[in-house]
């Protein structure tokens, strides 16, 4: 979408013809702020078109990005079926082309995959040589769901892993045309390094989150300590940086849990046990249950208590529930025979698919907290930040609040409500 809106002709390819139809009608199959608008604009200018016909798509273009999913297998390693299938069809399309074309792997793949899986499949199916007849690059993305379009347009840097110099030059030129004056720093390296860069980047961010959650867990055991003050203070150290230091209920989503697990599985396959990354995932797996611990501390036995859940998506501004901490929390509360009523500004449809009739669904935050014994803030949506102690006092049976994301003014809530928060 971002390419198209800068005047590049873009063809999207998907094997799902329903999805293709939707996109060509201007409907995005998932939620992302600003996306629908950009999609309509790109379709209007005829710069974007979606198809199921791979050959047709490649013939017209000079660069193909592979962005298929690489889900986790049960052992944590990644499933390369989609990457393999995409490589096959790209190979077949290349066979009929008579100009140089660059294949770019944007999917997150473990080091060695592009060289050992993508390259041989494309070569075999196309009958062409990588390097001389087609180019091959790895170009990891660092988009955040919820600000994907902004991140795409303003990246901190571009990483290009290149099979050979020509491949790298072609992709660098492509980005120079795209970014013009505002070209970000570029790192050109080999395929392997750029594959590992993506994992190292996400694993570090996951580490930062589990680090601050560990500090939060210490703070909760210390009178007068508050993880927010600690995070603010250490964030001012320029060796630390202030981002990704929000204590909470742990990271979720489709990237961090998957990528940390994949890095561990990959590293073990090389005979090296990355115990720090393992500890990071363990802290994260335990963190959601803190919300339930705090609820029990605040209101005692949860059986038959009505618990209002504010926020279900794994982070704000998305409807994505994959690996969301809310799933663990709700299931654990159900096990404790609590009654759950939940509200999320965007993720209600996805939630209904997961929880069905096991929980109740509210149509607003206020309706959600009505008559509740306890309210747990799981996702830091802006609409929840605006709630005042008075709102909880007025609508809840008893104003007992667990702030799982540290969005409320501690002093104000402690004065007027029964209030507990992560890292306080």
């Amino acid at each position: 979408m971002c390419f198209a809106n800068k005047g590049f002709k873009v063809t999207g390819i998907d094997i799902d013809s329903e999805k293709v139809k939707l996109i060509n009608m201007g409907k995005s199959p998932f939620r992302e702020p600003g996306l629908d608008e950009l999609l309509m604009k790109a379709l209007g200018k005829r710069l974007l078109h979606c198809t199921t016909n791979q050959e047709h798509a490649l013939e017209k273009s000079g660069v193909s990005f592979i962005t298929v999913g690489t889900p986790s297998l049960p052992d944590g390693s990644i499933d390369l079926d989609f990457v393999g299938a995409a490589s096959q069809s790209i190979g077949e399309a290349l066979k009929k082309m008579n100009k140089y074309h660059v294949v770019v792997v944007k999917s997150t793949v473990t080091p060695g995959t592009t060289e050992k899986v993508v390259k041989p499949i494309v070569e075999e199916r196309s009958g062409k040589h990588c390097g001389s007849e087609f180019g091959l690059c790895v170009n990891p993305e660092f988009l955040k769901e919820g600000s994907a379009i902004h991140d795409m347009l303003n990246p901190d840097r571009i990483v290009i892993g290149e099979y050979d110099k020509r491949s790298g030059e072609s992709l660098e030129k492509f980005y120079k045309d795209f970014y013009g004056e505002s070209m970000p720093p570029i790192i050109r390296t080999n395929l392997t390094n750029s594959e590992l860069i993506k994992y190292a980047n996400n694993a570090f961010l996951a580490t930062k989150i589990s680090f601050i959650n560990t500090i939060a867990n210490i703070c909760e055991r210390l009178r007068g300590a508050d993880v927010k003050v600690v995070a603010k203070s250490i964030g001012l150290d320029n060796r630390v940086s202030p981002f990704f230091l929000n204590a909470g209920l742990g990271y979720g989503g489709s990237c961090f849990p998957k990528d940390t697990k994949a890095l561990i599985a990959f590293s073990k396959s090389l005979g090296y046990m990355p115990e720090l990354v393992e500890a990071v995932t363990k802290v994260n797996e335990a963190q959601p249950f803190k919300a339930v611990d705090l609820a029990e501390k605040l209101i005692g036995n949860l059986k038959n208590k009505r618990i209002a859940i504010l926020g279900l998506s794994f982070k704000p501004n998305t409807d994505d529930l994959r690996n969301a901490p809310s799933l663990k929390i709700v299931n654990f509360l159900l096990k404790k025979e609590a009654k759950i009523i939940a509200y999320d500004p965007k993720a209600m449809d996805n939630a209904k698919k997961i929880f069905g009739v096991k929980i109740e669904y509210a149509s607003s935050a206020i309706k959600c907290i009505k008559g509740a014994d306890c309210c747990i803030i799981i996702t830091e949506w802006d609409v929840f930040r605006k709630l005042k102690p008075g709102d909880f006092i007025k609508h809840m049976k008893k104003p007992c609040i667990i702030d799982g994301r540290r969005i409320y003014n501690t002093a104000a809530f402690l004065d007027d409500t029964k209030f507990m928060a992560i890292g306080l």
Partner: protein
Amino acid sequence: MTPPSISIVGTGYVGLCTAVVFASKGYKVITSEQDHEKAASINEGIPPFFEPGLEDLLQRVLKENNLRCVLTSEEAILNTDVTFITVGTPNKPDGSIDLQYIERSAQEIGEALKKKETYHLLAVKSTVVPGTTENIVKATIEKYSGKRCGINFGLCVNPEFLREGNALHDTLHPDRIIIGEHDKKSGDFFEAIYNSFYRAEMPSIIRTTLPAAELIKYANNIFLATKISFINQVANICEKIPGADVTVIAKAIGLDKRIGPLFLNAGLGYGGSCLPKDVKAIINFSKSLGYNPIIFNAVEEVNKAQPIITIELCKTILKNLPGKQIAILGLAFKPNTDDMREAISIRIINNLLNEGAKIVAYDPAAMDNAREVFGNDIQYANSAIQCLKNADCCILTTEWEEFKKLTPEDFIQHMKNPTIIDGRRIYDPKQFSQKLKFKAIGLGTLT
């Protein structure tokens, strides 16, 4: 208002640097040191340890009569308005913090305050586990002075974030100032001191409770240790992947604003008097609260294993170690210091000695300290080139500038068997591996 006069209890690294920097801005500073020889040496302008720029500045402030070192805390306190406590807080064998120096100085301060009529402000700069200032410092001073904290004297926690080798610069240009305050008056008074010190260049200030300020220091250091163990772990993965190079990975992820480029140098692990001690202390403290911080345990474990990887690398290259001569370049725990406390070089050398290797070592600043550690167990060279002479393998353990200038030819010309293990990634792998046997932390086989 006349600038307050300042006393410093504890003339170790932090104490003396703080004293000299305040004195250099015209404050009257008195430090106290019980050790006669150490006190005399400070009064003569000779710092008891190496720190770039410190000696010059010390001599200047002595000449300007802004600093003197006395033998008792009492003399220092009775003649000043504000006291920084900067005594050491080493680890006990179980990793917990040893507070005997804190307790002793709190008692002396209490006894001195008993004789003082005016309000006095105390600031704990020593790294102490959360709760120490309230439960030990305050309680002890109140007991021995008969005075009330918050009324007759003020109490703050003011952690330092100095880097050895950069201490003077860091004191003059901190990223931020943390003030943990017992009460508002203490915090206000203390903030006023820093306002008059930094004036227009006042950094951001965070005022908080005593325990939060105590925890901030640990959280900060442990985050840095985490960053180092993280990148070392990536380095260890890189070594197993042909074509991978941790310096490229570090550069690429360092450009991410959420990560930042600093403290991402893969190497042989962190050492020194702060990170290892603070990581141990917070693990121990956290466990005492009933919480096992598994991430911090992992950070420590990775750091413990990191030097061993070098030994393994050395064994692979040389087949067997007995009788082999190994040149060690760098002994200090980092460049620009003579500090060898918890230095990685010690663990590497001891391991190599156990394996029967012969060691020749050189460091631009830490030779005297090294002699105290190793005595006659190793040989000492008086230059890098001399250190390399006839060696079977060279391990680069500290990234001093002068080592960066060595070329492949220097190694080829002087070593018996030109082999380098670059433990700090200061050499260009392509250039070096073309001409001699070259291994480096975080470098996969070159492709």
